[in-house]
């Protein structure tokens, strides 16, 4: 079981800030494909992966990073701090 978190407009499009996901996905990219296949709101949120960033256990990673051992996955748009 993965904790999957959504922030900013990703959260708004999907409609929830976090959920638990049962998955066999080996990488972030595979997880994204599984989520996109679920419902239109996921497909809309993940339509353009280049517009998204991902953190695994609170560290920024790439979409081809493996999920083995990961407990928390977060998807969000490019950050706008400062």
């Amino acid at each position, binding site marked *: 079981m993965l904790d999957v*978190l959504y*922030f*900013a*407009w990703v*959260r708004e499009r999907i409609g929830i800030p976090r959920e638990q996901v049962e998955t066999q996905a080996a990488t972030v990219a595979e997880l994204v494909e599984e989520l996109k296949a679920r419902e239109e709101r996921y497909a809309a949120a993940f339509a353009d992966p280049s517009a998204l960033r991902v*953190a695994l256990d*609170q560290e*920024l990673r790439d979409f081809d990073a493996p999920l083995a051992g990961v407990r*928390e996955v*977060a998807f*969000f*748009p*490019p*950050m*706008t*701090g*400062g």
Partner: protein
Amino acid sequence: MRIAVQEDPFDLGAESEAFARNCAGMGAVVTFTGIVRDLDGALTAMEIEHYAGMTERAITGIAEKAMARWGLGDVLVIHRHGRLKPGERIMMVATAARHRKDAFEAAEYLMDYLKSRAPFWKKEITARGAGWVAAREEDEAALNRW
């Protein structure tokens, strides 16, 4: 080194004074303060969302890199989240170094990384509606100089 992620306002004067007071041996202190601009009166509020579990860890990593790279005497980062009004202070950084060049560079480095690598997202609320602030290409490009 002090990192604070908070909803409450911070006291810029008191923070600046305290930071400069605790830098024995340092000759240069630089501060940066980010303020919510009023966008010619169109802005009602700025909402800042953040990734509570990750924010402090990400900022600490950025600050530690700056401390080591420029041999800083001290670093301070304060960043707010929640709903802010135009004119309110969003965040500040402070750096202390022996010489001015290092203090300036480290402060710019902190700002460039906080801008694009700390998990905050800004939403502008105006009378016409609300919209997420888009990351700017030039902010991402600014990281290349480090």
